[in-house]
C-alpha cells in the first residue's frame, strides 16, 4: 500500500515571529477563484463611486492681482514658478508650492497681452497695450536696484500675442501682422501678412521649431514657415478662433478654441476638415492648453467653466467650476501633468488637480499598485451602463445646465429642419454635411 495524505507543516505557512510579515501563499488556479468577472465588476463599480466621492479638484486660489488675469506663462525649467499678467499691466511671479506671490512688477500701461518665458528660463518677455515688447530678468532685482526691463522694443502697433522659439534667440509677436524678431535687434527680421486683419494668438510648433500658427480675426488660422517669406496656408472657419495650441507629442496636430463654443483639433496637413470637434462649452472658448503627454487638453471658456477633453473625444471628461469663478480667460496645464491653472476675470488664479480624485503626494508602492489595478478595472468595465452613469455624472451650475439643454434642443431642431428640407426636395439637392465639415469655409494656399 502506498499512501500520501495532505499534511501541511504550519512552519511553512505561518510567520515565525510577529515582526515578520504574514505569509500569503498564492494559487492562481481559476477554479479556486470563482465569479472573477462579477467580483471585478463590483470592484470597478466601487472604485468608480469612490472616484466621485474623492473628486475634490480645487486646490488653491492665488489672489493678489488688482485686475482680471489676462495671460499666464509656465516657467520652462521650474515647476513651482508661474508668471501671470493682468489687465492693469501688472506682472506677478508666483511660487505654486507656497501659494504666494514672490515678485510684482508694473510691466506695461494697459493690458499685458502676452508673456512667454525664454527657453533657458533666465528671462521672460511681455507685450502690452502700450505697443512695447519688454524683456525681463527672471531673478528679482537686488536690494536697492530698480525694477527695469533688460530690453524694451517700441513697436508701431499694438501687440496681442507672443511666443518664443524653442531653441533659438527668436520670438514671434502678433498684432496687425505676425512679426519674427531676433532678440538682438529692435526691428522684426520678418513680417507676415495675408490681407488686412489682426491676429489674436501666435504659437511656435514645439517639434518642427520653424513652423508657427496664428489665429486671425478674419476667422482664419494661418500657418507659417519662419524660413519662407510668405505664409504657408490658411483655413477659414465659420467663426473666429481665439487661441490655439500645438499637441506637444504629435506636433502635426493642433487644437484651436473657437467663438462658436467648440474646439477643433486639426491635422496640419489636412486642413479641409478638423479631425475632431470638441463640444460641451456653452459659450465662447477663450483659451486652450495641452497636457505634456499630449493625450488631453484643457480649455477655458466665457461660460465660467474649465473643461478637460481627451484629444480624440468629442465631449469633455471633466468640468471644473466654482461659485466665484467668473469668465476664465487663460488656462495652463502644468509641466508635471498633475495640475491645471486657470486665470479668470475676477482677479484670481486657481490651482486645480488634473485628475480630480487623484491622491496627491508620494504613494506607497502598494497604494500605487492598487490604484493602477482599479484604474484598469474601471477602464475594462467603463461601458457598463451603471458604471458609465456614475462616472459621467457631474454637477453643473444651473445656468450652464439649462444653457446646454437649450443648445441641445436648438441643435435637434436644426437637424430636424434640415431633415425635413431634404425630405421635401429633390433627392441629392440638399447634401448631407457632416458636423466636421460644417465649420470649415475654405482652405487657402
Amino acid at each position, binding site marked *: 500500500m502506498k*499512501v500520501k495524505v495532505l499534511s501541511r507543516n504550519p512552519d511553512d505557512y505561518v510567520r515565525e515571529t510577529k515582526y515578520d510579515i*504574514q505569509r500569503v501563499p498564492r494559487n492562481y488556479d481559476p477554479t479556486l477563484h470563482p465569479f*472573477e468577472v462579477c*467580483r471585478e465588476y463590483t470592484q470597478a463599480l466601487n472604485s468608480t463611486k469612490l472616484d466621485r466621492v474623492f473628486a475634490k479638484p480645487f486646490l488653491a486660489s492665488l489672489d493678489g492681482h488688482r485686475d482680471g488675469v489676462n495671460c499666464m506663462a509656465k516657467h520652462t525649467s521650474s515647476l513651482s514658478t508661474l508668471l501671470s499678467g493682468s489687465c492693469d499691466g501688472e506682472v506677478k511671479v508666483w511660487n505654486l508650492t507656497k501659494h504666494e506671490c514672490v515678485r510684482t512688477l508694473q510691466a506695461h500701461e494697459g493690458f499685458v497681452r502676452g508673456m512667454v518665458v525664454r527657453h533657458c528660463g533666465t528671462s521672460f518677455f511681455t507685450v502690452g497695450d502700450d505697443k512695447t515688447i519688454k524683456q525681463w530678468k527672471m531673478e528679482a532685482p537686488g536690494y536697492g536696484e530698480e525694477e527695469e526691463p533688460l530690453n524694451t522694443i517700441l513697436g508701431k502697433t499694438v501687440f496681442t500675442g507672443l511666443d518664443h522659439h524653442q531653441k533659438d534667440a527668436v520670438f514671434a509677436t502678433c498684432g496687425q501682422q505676425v512679426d519674427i524678431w531676433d532678440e538682438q535687434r529692435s526691428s522684426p527680421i520678418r513680417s507676415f501678412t495675408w490681407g488686412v486683419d489682426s491676429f489674436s494668438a501666435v504659437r511656435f510648433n514645439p517639434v518642427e521649431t520653424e513652423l508657427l500658427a496664428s489665429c486671425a480675426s478674419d476667422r482664419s488660422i494661418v500657418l507659417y514657415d519662419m524660413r519662407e517669406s510668405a505664409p504657408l496656408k490658411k483655413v477659414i472657419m465659420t467663426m473666429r478662433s481665439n487661441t490655439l495650441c500645438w499637441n506637444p507629442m504629435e506636433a502635426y496636430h493642433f487644437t484651436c478654441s473657437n467663438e462658436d463654443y467648440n474646439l477643433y483639433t486639426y491635422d496640419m496637413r489636412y486642413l479641409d476638415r478638423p479631425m475632431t470637434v470638441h463640444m460641451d462649452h456653452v459659450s465662447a472658448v477663450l483659451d486652450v492648453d495641452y497636457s505634456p503627454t499630449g493625450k488631453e487638453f484643457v480649455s477655458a471658456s466665457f461660460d465660467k467653466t474649465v473643461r478637460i477633453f481627451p484629444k480624440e473625444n468629442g465631449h469633455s471628461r471633466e468640468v471644473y467650476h466654482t461659485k466665484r469663478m467668473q469668465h476664465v480667460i487663460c488656462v495652463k496645464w502644468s509641466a508635471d501633468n498633475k495640475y491645471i491653472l486657470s486665470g479668470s476675470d475676477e482677479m484670481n488664479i486657481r490651482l486645480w488637480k488634473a485628475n480630480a480624485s487623484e491622491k496627491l503626494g508620494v504613494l506607497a508602492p502598494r497604494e500605487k499598485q492598487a490604484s493602477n489595478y482599479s484604474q484598469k478595472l474601471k477602464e475594462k468595465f467603463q461601458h457598463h451602463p451603471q458604471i458609465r452613469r456614475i462616472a459621467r455624472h457631474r454637477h453643473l451650475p444651473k445656468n450652464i445646465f439649462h444653457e446646454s439643454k437649450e443648445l441641445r434642443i436648438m441643435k435637434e431642431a436644426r437637424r430636424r429642419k434640415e431633415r425635413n428640407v431634404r425630405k421635401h426636395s429633390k433627392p441629392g439637392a440638399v447634401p448631407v454635411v457632416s458636423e466636421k465639415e460644417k465649420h470649415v469655409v475654405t482652405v487657402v494656399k
Partner: protein
Amino acid sequence: MASPGEATVKDSHVGKKKKPPARYWPEQQKEGKDDNKVGKNEEHAEQAVEQEEQKTQKTTKRKQEGGERDGKKFISGKMDPFPGPARIPEDRINKFKRKDKTKKPRGSHYKLKDMISRSEKASEMAQKQAARFDLLLPEDAGFLEGDEDEDTCTISQEDIADAVDITAGSKYFNLKLSQFGPYRVDYSKTGRHLVLGGRRGHVACIDWQSKQLMCEINVMESVNDVKWLHSEAMYAVAQKKWLYIYDSNGIELHCIRKFNDVLRMQFLPYHFLLATASATGFLQYLDVSVGKEVTAICTKTGRLDVMCQNPHNAIIHLGHHNGTVTLWSPNQKEALVKMLCHQGGVRSVTVDKTGTYMVTSGMDKKLKVYDIRTFKPLKSYFLPAGASCLSLSQRGLLSAATGDIVQVYRDVWSSPVTKPYMAHRVPRTVWGLHFCPFEDVLGVGHGDGFTSMLVPGAGEPNFDGLDANPFRSAKQRQEWEVKALLEKIQPELISLNPTELGQVDRASFAQRHQDRVQALGFDPLAKEKFIPKYKTKGRSSAGGVERRKKQVAYEDQRDVIKKTVETKMKMEKERKQKEQKATVFSSQRSALDRFKK
C-alpha cells in the same frame, strides 16, 4: 501534478523536500545531461544539438527562437544548453485559459484591432506567468495505491492512519455522540472549523484539527441543518420552527422569523447569501451582510429537503419527490431549468467545483452524472442500496452514503466505475456528508456521532492565501472580511453563466427597444397621435377636423406610398421587359410555325 511525489512520501512535511533540481521538461532530461557531459568538446556538443534539432520540430522552433541569443556564449566558450525561455506544457497553459481568441474585426478598424491585439498579448503573458508559477506550488495532492491484487477499497481507515504521519493520522477520529444524533455536518470555507448539528438539539463548533471545542449548546429543539456563514465567527442553525444565527461562542445573535420550517441551507460565500429551503416549499434568500431577505420564491413543489449549490455560478439546485431537479436563481420566480433525473424521488444532489457535473441519486437506486452546461446525462450507475447522501470533493472524488456505509468513488464522470475507491462502515445510518476543503478528510455525521475519515487525494493541496487561508491569523481574517464585503456580488448578478458580464452585449436595437417597452409599459419612441387643434369661428366642424386628420395621415403615409409606387413601377418595367423579350422570341419563326393555321 508537477511530479508524482513518490519520493516525498516518507518525509512529506518534515523538513524540506530534497528532489533533484527539475529540468524544464521531463522527456529531454537525459539529453540535456548528455549535452553537458559531452559539452567539454564543442564539436560534439554541436552535433548533439543538431541531432536534437532533427528529432522534434518543436525543439527546433525553440532553438530558432533562441537564435537571437546565439551570439551569447559563456566566457568558457560553452553554448547555453537551454537557450530561450523554458517551454511550458500545453495543458498547464490551458488550465489558465479564460477565453478563446476573439475574431479580429474586418475592415479598417485599426484602433480596435490594435486594442484587441494588445489586450490579447497581455492576457497571454498573464496566462504564461501563471502557468510558470504553477511549478512553484509547494504541495502535492495525496493518493492511495494498493499493492498488486489489493483493492484500495479494502484498506481500512486504521491502516491508513497508521501508515501516514502522526498529524495526518490524527485526522481520523470518531466522536461518539449517541444521545442527540443523527448529526448534520458543515466545514467552514477554510476547512479549519467544523459545526455539528444533532437532530435532537445538540450543536457544537470544533476547531477540529486541534480538537478544541469552541462552543457546545443544546437548543432544546430539533435541528434540521447547520451552516457556517462567511467566516468561523457565525453559523446558522435551522431549528424546528425558525432560523437562528449563533456566534462561535454559542450566543444567539438572531432569530429570523421570516424563515420558518427550514430543512436545508446553502451559503453563497461571494454573495453573502444564505439560501434556505423549507418544508412549506419556499426557497428564501437571506443577505447576511445586511440582514435582509432578498427574495422568497414559492416553488410549489412541496417539501424541499434536497438542496445543493453550484459553486461555479451560485445557482441553487433543488431535488423533488417526483424525480425532477430544478435550478433556481433569486432573480426569477420560476425555475431556470427543470430536469427529470430519476424515476421516483431525488434523494441527493451535488455539483462539482467547476460547475460542469451534477451527480444525483434517487429512490430508484440509481446514481446519475449529468453535464449541467448542456443538461445531458453522462453516466448512470446502479447502487444496490441507493445513496442517501452525496458529496463531491475539491478534486472530484464522490462520496456516497448507502445506509451506514460510506463509499468514495473516483472519476465518476470520465470512465465507467465498477469499484469504489474507498469504503468505510460507520456505526449507524449516515445523516450528513461533507468533504473538508483543503484537507484529505471526509466528515461523516451519523446516528452515533461524527466520524472524520481520511480520503487521500480529496482536497486541493495548494490554497490561495487571499481567498481561503486555513492558517490565517485574526488580523488577516478581519482584513479578508473587509475585502470580501467590499467585493460582495449583488444577487442580481446571479445567472447561469457567470462570465456573461464580461462579454459584449450584442442585443440588436429591436431587441433592446422591445425590452424597454416591456420595462416601461409604453413605447417611448412611438409617434404621438395627431390631435387637431381646436379652432374657433366654426372652423372646427366635424368634417374639417376629419379633413385635417386625413392630411396628416397622408403625410405619414407619404414615404410608404412613395416606396410602393416605386416598387410597382419597377415591377411594371420588369414585366414589360419580359414581354418584350417574349415578343422577340415569338417573332422568330420556328420550324413548326408552318403548321400553324
